[in-house]
């Protein structure tokens, strides 16, 4: 296991992925520093979610490496990556619809704890965990709804629950896959300030189509197109870059 001494939170090294003849990730390399707020942009089909899926382990790359705080996680199954401090949200909300908000977030906490193998005590026994779940719900402003089932609450609120679940584990690296998708204006600003308030202990990598909102949150930006990194750097520099215009406006 190669341990990097460069101190990056997440490194993607020459990642390649192809489905049959179609190359979806072509030699992608990223270096993200701890505490950074990185935004990944690109037109539809650029391979952004595919890249996320390879980082989270849902997809196996054909070649290349992924390192989390120096540890090589390229061949680890998704659940092990969570134990290394990786967390993610999904484009399509994947909550436990029939369960309460409280239960959802508690499950989020349970994933990293030995209690998950406990075969006779119920979750309610773990007062500390439930209290922590309540704190997390409070942090996203949803504590009053804790005992409601997910199916009862609005879409924007579900997004916040998802975020709560991902944050509950105090991840070192958080992948946000289009967190603002499908939200109304008010919901958007609520979620945006939530993301802005995430502590620096968590490095954030975000995919977003809503440029206006996302660019406010980003410090650095990576532009992908056809599975390749086109531009990569500080936000303002990337926005001003000619190549960015080309990709979005077409030449």
């Amino acid at each position, binding site marked *: 296991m190669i341990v990097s001494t460069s101190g990056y939170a997440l490194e993607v090294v020459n990642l390649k992925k192809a489905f049959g003849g179609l190359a979806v990730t072509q030699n992608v390399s990223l270096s993200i520093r701890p505490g950074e707020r990185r935004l990944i942009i690109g037109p539809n089909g650029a391979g952004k979610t595919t890249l996320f899926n390879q980082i989270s382990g849902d997809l196996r790359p054909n070649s290349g490496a992924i390192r989390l705080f120096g540890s090589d996680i390229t061949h680890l199954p998704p659940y092990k990556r*969570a134990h290394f401090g990786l967390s*993610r949200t999904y484009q399509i909300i994947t909550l436990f619809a029939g369960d309460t908000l409280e239960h959802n977030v508690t499950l989020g906490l349970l994933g990293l704890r030995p209690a998950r193998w406990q075969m006779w005590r119920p979750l309610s026994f773990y007062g500390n965990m439930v209290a922590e779940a309540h704190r997390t719900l409070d942090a996203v402003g949803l504590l009053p709804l804790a005992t409601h089932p997910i199916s009862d609450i609005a879409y924007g609120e579900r997004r916040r629950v998802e975020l709560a679940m991902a944050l509950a584990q105090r991840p070192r690296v958080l992948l946000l896959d289009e967190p603002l998708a499908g939200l109304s204006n008010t919901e958007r600003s609520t979620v945006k300030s939530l993301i802005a308030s995430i502590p620096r202990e968590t490095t954030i990598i975000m995919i977003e189509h809503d440029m206006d909102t996302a660019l406010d949150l980003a410090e650095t930006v990576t532009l992908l197109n056809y599975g390749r990194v086109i531009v990569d750097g500080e936000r303002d520099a990337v926005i001003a870059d000619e190549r960015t215009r080309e990709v979005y406006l077409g030449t």
Partner: protein
Amino acid sequence: MKWIGIALLAGSLLVPPLFAGDFYVNLASQILIAAIFALSLNLLVGFGGMTSLGHASYLGVAAYICALLTSRYGFGHGTAALLSIAGTTAMAAFFGLIALRASGLGFLMITLALSQVLWGLAYRMSNVTNGDNGIAGLTRPAPFGISLDSPISFYWFALIVATFAFVMMTIFVSSAFGSSMKGVRDQPRRMAALGFNPWLIRWITFVYAGFWGGVSGLLYVYYHKYIHPTSLSTTSSAEALLGVIAGGSGTLGGPAVGAALVLLLKNYVSAYLERWNMLLGLVFLFIVLVMPTGIVPGVSSLTARLRGGSR
């Protein structure tokens, strides 16, 4: 409301030994055995989200091991019971490794193929299993010296085991692990991203379900004092699955109710018709087409509506 239900249940469980004749007591024992079997299957189907058509493997193998150890190799009942359960659980562990390479329909097909292979073996290996003749002349154990030969004493024994099984399975399902299991059933990708190991959670559930299937197999062979390859057949697995679905796989008690209904139907029908399989098939079609969530959820939503209406 819940307490009335529990009181009724306790009452109905006490009726057979106290008031009914031998025939009904025996029927009640059979219902308890079928209930444990269906509850063990529901650990897989309802709570684990893994539909198996090969659950009879565990009932049958435990029964056969016990039958062979006691009748042919002179083991005492206590040891035979332990070895049967241990053997069946080990088999479940092994089968789980194979079947869980797939999910959904692939899993279903593999469990079906595995149980059919066992069924075929039971018929073919006649110098071991006695093939189509089955193994007869078996005895019931006598725990603490108490004979289980009378219908009533066997019923109490079955009731104690069934209650224990129900309590243990309920604890399992309601535990933190049970929550993980249900989470993996509903959103496996999300659970993996949260740090849960979906494969291991499923495998443990599979083994535990096999364990209780084996327990029901022991009761089965004690009750009948006879074992035949049909106990390993797809029909046997299908009856349990029907009980689970008819009773409602989302609830703890539903499968027991469903299993009771299937057994009562089978008993009733075999008095008048020879064509149980055909009726089983028709009932399958009926339940799936008309009442897919099962009877118990249907009744409880009905009572909820009635209560809501009377406020």
